[in-house]
């Protein structure tokens, strides 16, 4: 059972029944074996997750004292135009990322799906950006996006179009970040689609071919329905990842979220408030609201996904 299966449906447990006198001893062994993992998880995941919410309700003062703040941090965030701007930017980013990731990854996987040397080489090149560091590769992109010397504007000029300001213009900055993110992340989606496609039984596609189904029909009527759990997984993961966008905007906007706050994502704003302005409680309140949004959107996506996912 893969992680994808675990994600989309609850896994059946593979526990072996254990009646008898050894039960207590086995329980002790299990506790000892699980303890290290759970010690780390409690200290750095479960407890902080609870603490994250608690922090938002207190204000901390330089002397080391704290005072109960009630909902004041939440109120402050809700009347902060930059918080709304950052949430809207994040939503816009997700709205651009999710559909384009789905369409592009399917298109690329359909093109690259072949067990030949050249195709495996091309697959590797598409996946490569996924394991490269975001800041390191963003530098090459900043150079490509450069309005005066970048290759992208050179291409636009060559085909007779007007050059674009890319990251320097408020309206093109976010699409530019999306383009970079697609380049950086889509290899992973293509790879899991390819692995899902390779699990489709040859016979199914072959008999469709014999029955006269063309390549497009086979793609839309057979391949896509059969890999719909993977598509759904990609949709959920891209949604969650988009709402948490940070490294790409941090690098491409030189940590500022500009121009004119056009690329200020929620997480970047939270980071700025916490670590540039030292407003930990305010940042925690905004982080809590972002997490609630992420949970809500994930639940919604899962609900929609379950209605459109075909399980074998």
């Amino acid at each position, binding site marked *: 059972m893969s*992680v994808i299966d675990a*994600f989309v449906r609850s896994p059946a447990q593979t526990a072996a029944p*254990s009646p008898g006198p050894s039960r207590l001893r086995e329980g002790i062994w*299990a506790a000892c074996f699980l303890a290290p993992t759970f010690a780390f998880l409690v*200290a750095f995941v479960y407890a902080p*997750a609870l603490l994250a919410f608690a922090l938002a309700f207190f204000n901390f003062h330089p002397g080391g004292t704290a005072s109960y703040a009630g909902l004041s941090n939440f109120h402050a965030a809700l009347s902060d135009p930059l918080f709304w701007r950052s949430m809207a930017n994040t939503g816009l980013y997700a709205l651009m990322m999710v559909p384009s990731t789905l369409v592009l990854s399917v298109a690329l996987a359909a*093109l690259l799906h072949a067990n030949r040397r050249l195709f495996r080489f091309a697959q590797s090149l*598409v996946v490569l950006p996924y394991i490269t560091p975001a800041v390191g590769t963003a530098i090459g992109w900043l150079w490509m996006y450069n309005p005066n010397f970048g290759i992208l504007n050179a291409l636009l000029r060559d085909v007779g179009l007007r050059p674009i300001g890319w990251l320097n213009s408020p309206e093109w900055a976010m699409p530019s970040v999306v383009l970079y993110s697609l380049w950086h992340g889509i290899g992973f989606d293509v790879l899991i689609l390819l692995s899902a496609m390779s699990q489709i039984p040859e016979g199914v596609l072959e008999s469709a071919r014999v029955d006269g189904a063309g390549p497009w029909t086979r793609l839309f009527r057979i391949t896509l329905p059969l890999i719909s759990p993977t598509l759904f997984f990609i949709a959920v993961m891209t949604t969650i990842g988009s709402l948490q966008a940070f490294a790409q905007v941090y690098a491409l906007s030189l*940590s500022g979220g500009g121009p004119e706050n056009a690329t200020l994502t929620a997480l970047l704003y939270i980071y700025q408030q916490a*670590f540039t302005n030292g407003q930990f409680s305010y940042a925690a309140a905004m982080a809590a609201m972002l997490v609630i949004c992420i949970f809500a959107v994930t639940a919604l996506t899962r609900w929609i996904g379950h209605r459109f996912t075909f399980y074998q």
Partner: protein
Amino acid sequence: MRTIAYGLRAAAALALGLAFLLPIYIAFVTSIDRPQDVFVYPPHLVPDWNFSVWVQTWQGNTWMFAILNTVVIALTTIAIALATTVLCAYALVYIPFRGRAAVWTALLAVLMIPEQALLIPNFVTMAKLHLVDTRIAQILPYGASVFGVFLLRQHLLTLPREYHDAAKIDGCGHLAFLWRIVLPLSRPVLFTIALYIFIGCWNSLIWPLMVTSSPRVQPIEVLLSTFLTQDSSNWQGLSAAAMFATLPMIALFILFRRPILRGLSKSSGING
């Protein structure tokens, strides 16, 4: 007709792959161009092989330190996380105990909690422990790898159940079975998990950015981001520095393409 279609498809696939390489290639060319070839139109695509900017950039900042920091942090994280992962996955597969479903749910829950929500409280924890601006602070939060547990558990479930039954009959305890049978049979998976953690450490940005402030302990991505925000018009220097951060990952990918791709296609993209 069939072969023409195949040829077109192969050409498209190859062109696509090369297009994905282009942004890295352009930074590479910029970093080794002669200065007069950098700001030209149309952009320069054939390098001059002039490595003087590399030398200059390397000497101008503490890259060696940053790379050593990153490697030390990564290797320590790998050692701790592999140990916790092996024990946890073993217990989930080979030790029958009550509450296994609850443990599984608790592990799945980790995947649902966005890492970013944990950053501020984890920073507070590190401040309380006086670990801010240390390498340890960059290691501890990744001491347990849920991704690793999933991957290893999945692998252990494919091993024949008879091994365990036979070992039990021969009086082999959990530790001996783990050490003599499970570990040797899991080497490739453990290697994949280790690669993953290494890549995750090399590429991690936001947590080290928050928890460190001095170059003495900072990893390469953080040093690079400092360079980028302070000196954003030094294109050649930046491109050379970008190569210092990117080329080791490309080398790793060329060396270990198979285990990396195998791990990726089984993972859900969780780092660390």
